[in-house]
């Protein structure tokens, strides 16, 4: 579980996060959603320590990440896996070397053990046998799956995914969403996904945090987000004509029930 308590973050005069508090629950897929420029990526980067918060607390199972020095943070970082928007695979390494990289840096595993673990992780994301390819030889969807394999290679307790479906076709997006959901339940980890893909929200959103103007504007599950009267949420969820039509249909059906 990750607790975010009263976090503020500014860049110069621009205050991006305003007193944000929330809880990312263990064994659930926690989504941070919101329009572009509202502060959801900044919140995630503060939580993983890529940005320092101005004030507030971030607690990883009770351990205050903000008060730790670089060395102490290293212990928590070994428990974090992250899937970046652009996959962030190391270009100069093969698929297998990418997956083995965290293992070679932080474990005392032998090469054979690391290879076995890499094979297992690649198999888990349905990429068995692709070990010797380079990232540039893989499609966007494959790169995301390699990044997931790398993220889970160290058996993380926390998994962060920054817009995992960006640049992917709807079918591949569903595969990636499915993988994130399965891995979260299978390993009972705390997963945080930043997205503005409504399909992901409906598919995998166990706990949804809506960030608006740098604040935790609304929090609930995927059923609640569809039925809420909150105007800002409705503006976001029903932004397209298609979604508006669905809402209208739902409204027409509900009196009959």
């Amino acid at each position, binding site marked *: 579980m990750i607790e975010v308590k009263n976090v503020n973050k500014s860049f110069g005069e621009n205050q991006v996060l305003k007193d944000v508090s929330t809880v990312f629950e263990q064994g659930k897929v926690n989504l941070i959603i919101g329009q572009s420029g509202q502060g959801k990526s900044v919140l995630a980067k503060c939580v*993983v*320590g*890529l940005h320092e918060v101005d004030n507030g607390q971030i607690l990883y199972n009770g351990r205050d990440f903000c008060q730790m020095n*670089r060395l102490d*943070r*290293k*212990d928590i*970082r*070994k428990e*974090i896996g*992250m899937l*970046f*928007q*652009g996959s*962030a*695979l*190391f*270009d100069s390494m093969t698929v297998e070397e990418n997956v083995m*990289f*965290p293992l*070679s*840096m*932080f474990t005392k595993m032998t090469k054979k053990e690391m290879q076995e673990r890499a094979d297992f992780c690649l198999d888990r994301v349905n990429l068995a046998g692709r070990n010797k390819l380079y990232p540039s030889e893989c499609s966007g969807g494959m790169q995301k799956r390699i990044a997931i394999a790398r993220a889970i290679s160290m058996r993380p307790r926390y998994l*962060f995914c920054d817009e995992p479906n960006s640049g992917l076709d709807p079918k591949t997006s569903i595969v990636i969403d499915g993988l994130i959901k399965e891995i979260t339940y299978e390993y009972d980890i705390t997963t945080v996904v930043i997205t503005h893909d409504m399909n992901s929200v409906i598919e995998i959103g166990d706990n949804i945090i809506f960030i608006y103007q740098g604040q935790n504007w609304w929090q609930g599950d995927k059923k609640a987000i569809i039925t809420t009267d909150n105007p800002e949420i409705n503006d976001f969820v029903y932004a397209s004509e298609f979604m508006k039509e669905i809402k209208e249909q739902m409204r027409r059906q509900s009196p009959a029930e």
Partner: protein
Amino acid sequence: MGVIRNIGKYMFMLWVVFSLPDKWRIFRVRLFQEIEIIGIKSIPIVALMSAFMGGVIAMQTASNMSNPLLPTYTVGYITQSSTILEFSPTIISLILAGKIGSNVASEIGTMRVTEQIDALEIMGVNSLSFLVLPKTLAAIMFFPVLVIFSIGLSLVGGWVSMIMSGLLSSEDYVFGIRSFFLVSNIVYALTKTVVFGFLIVTISSFYGYYTKGGALDVGRSSTQAVVSSSIAILIANFLLTQMILLK
């Protein structure tokens, strides 16, 4: 103000770079990779530059030596001393600032804009030490080798040009390059080279590491890296000459 802030940031970067590697085995592998990229792959350009440079120095010196009072072997002596003192360490370093500086800045800059550096940080890897320390040590270790190689080839280039042009006999040229040879000049040249190698890699890494934006900004960082490291080489050359040669 911006320059002072950048110098402060650069100093802080060096402080983080020179921390102990996370894993020595990985560091060793990366060091040998960088020696290959920074050092061994620079040999062809250094060889080409040095041979022609030596040839031109010898020819220019010979063609301007019209005074009969000057002994003929002076051509070899001037070629030797100017090559050791200035041409090989400084000119070759300036060439390498272009080749290696742009390579380092664009490699690290691309890693920054594609979030590969963020990925390293989130894993708990000291990204600065991981990326910059092997490159810096590779440059410090291999630049002197390149310069010794360059000095040798320049002198050979001078000899070949004298033979081909017929401006000087082989015996006179060889006698000249062996005359008044000072080991301290070699020490001075190698000291300069180590400093230049350090400046090229760390300044280029600095511009690469702190790149913000996209592909265009990587290109801009690469250009800034080459310009800044070239200026740093010229300033360091002046200061080191004052400190070592004129003490």
